[in-house]
């Protein structure tokens, strides 16, 4: 594990995080440190627990064991705490952690702008003028200034995903989680989404990115993590992990991904 240092203190700290779905152990004791401003890409075969790890981090799937600290505050009630429902940690986490999903999950009955303003008004209590101003700014920033009034159905996948990113950013998160956000996109639409993410990284956002885009990881990540079978197999700077992996399983995986 690397020492604390460069741009800031600890954003996230995981100790022995475990998650089970019935008999299936999806996470089997994950330790991870993420510093403020760091961009961490998570690679791994499907079923390795990458997505579950992200969903644990914002308590969509609260972990059964282990401890997670967000900004040096524990967000779990300790071993066996089970559900994060109705605990103060839930609000604390959701106010600081934004997530973007593979399937966009935009609200289909609301326009692009309304998707971005709804939670600002309902959760943060911003006035509708304030929320619209912020929403408009963010949608301009992701290149959708001309789509404010469009319903998701009329947007391409790439546009929908950029609205989803703007929607998460509107809540002023301290960390952004990206769960295979380009996997459901047509190839020609991947770049516009990655470009937005790259800009976000350059602005210093702390990001955890589950992805199959090796090129993006190589270029943008401060650190790359390889997961398999519910464990972190290997981690390191992209140049080392991607070009010169130590572990056999990492080599196999990269061989398969880069092979064709």
């Amino acid at each position: 594990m690397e020492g604390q240092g460069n741009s800031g203190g600890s954003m996230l700290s995981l100790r022995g995080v475990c998650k089970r779905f019935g008999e299936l152990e999806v996470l089997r004791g994950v330790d991870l440190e993420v510093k403020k401003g760091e961009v961490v890409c998570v690679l791994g075969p499907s079923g390795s627990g990458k997505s579950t790890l992200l969903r644990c981090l914002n308590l969509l799937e609260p972990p059964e064991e282990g401890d997670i600290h967000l900004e040096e505050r524990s967000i779990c009630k300790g071993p066996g705490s089970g559900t994060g429902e109705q605990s103060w940690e839930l609000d604390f986490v959701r106010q600081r952690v934004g997530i973007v999903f593979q399937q966009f999950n935009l609200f289909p009955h609301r326009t692009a702008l309304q998707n971005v303003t709804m939670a600002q008004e309902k959760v943060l209590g911003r006035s509708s003028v304030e929320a619209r101003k912020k929403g408009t700014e963010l949608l301009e920033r992701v290149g959708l200034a001309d789509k404010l009034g469009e319903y998701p159905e009329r947007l391409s996948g790439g546009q929908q995903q950029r609205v989803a990113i703007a929607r998460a950013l509107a809540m002023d998160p301290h960390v952004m989680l990206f769960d295979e956000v380009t996997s459901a996109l047509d190839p020609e639409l991947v770049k516009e989404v990655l470009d937005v993410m790259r800009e976000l990284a350059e602005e210093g956002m702390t990001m955890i990115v589950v992805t199959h885009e090796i090129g993006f990881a190589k270029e943008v990540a401060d650190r790359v993590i390889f997961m398999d079978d519910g464990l972190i197999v290997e981690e390191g700077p992209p140049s080392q992990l991607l070009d010169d992996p130590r572990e056999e399983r990492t080599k196999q995986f990269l061989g398969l991904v880069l092979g064709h």
Partner: protein
Amino acid sequence: MEEFLKQFFDVGFMVDHFDEVLDGFWVTIQLSVISGILSLVWGLVLATLRQLPGKGFLPVRFVTITYIDVFRGVPLLLLILLIYGGIPSLDFLPESLRHPEFFGKKDNFWFGVLAITITYGAYMAEVYRAGIESVPGGQMEAARSLGMNHGQAMRNVILPQAVRKVIAPLLNDFIALTKDTTLVSVIALNEVVLVGNDIQSETFNSSALTLGALMFLALTLPLARLVDKLIAREQGRFTRGAPRVEAL
């Protein structure tokens, strides 16, 4: 043939009794609209209670599901008789509930409203539930991940989509409700069937009842066509390959 027409479709007879039958049908419409609106609201309340998450709400879910099961299984006619015969005898209730009279309507009207709402609330709760369950799970996750609590997510994200999907089946239930209001005739409410039947008993001519049937058709046929249109529109979304709710 002439005898048949005279028995059931005596136009002169219909004209003579038109005002009486129409008065009865007006009661039917009032009963339908009031019970219909209350059932829509009550059904939504039940469906929402049924979806409350977590262990803490287990008793609420249990009671709600039991209610829905029981009142979908009990005949409306039986419930009408039970309420009409039972509630006035409950001495612990205030007089205004034992013999409710509001807006110029007597107790049999309001007991009818109560019985229909209890029964159709249960039916409509199931329709709402189907709508709620048809909204993809990612919608709730997205809402929760943005910091909304369960109630906010239901109100702002899930229910608006769910209700739009079930407008047609709800309207179907409303048509059935309209016809079932005739059961309230059993507790002497002068709605269209009781009026028509009284005329039939006095005159041995059935045309007043037939006229009532025609009035029903004038109401239910356009509603049925509307249901068809709504269903076709809903299916159109899927055939275009976009299984999402279109902006209205």
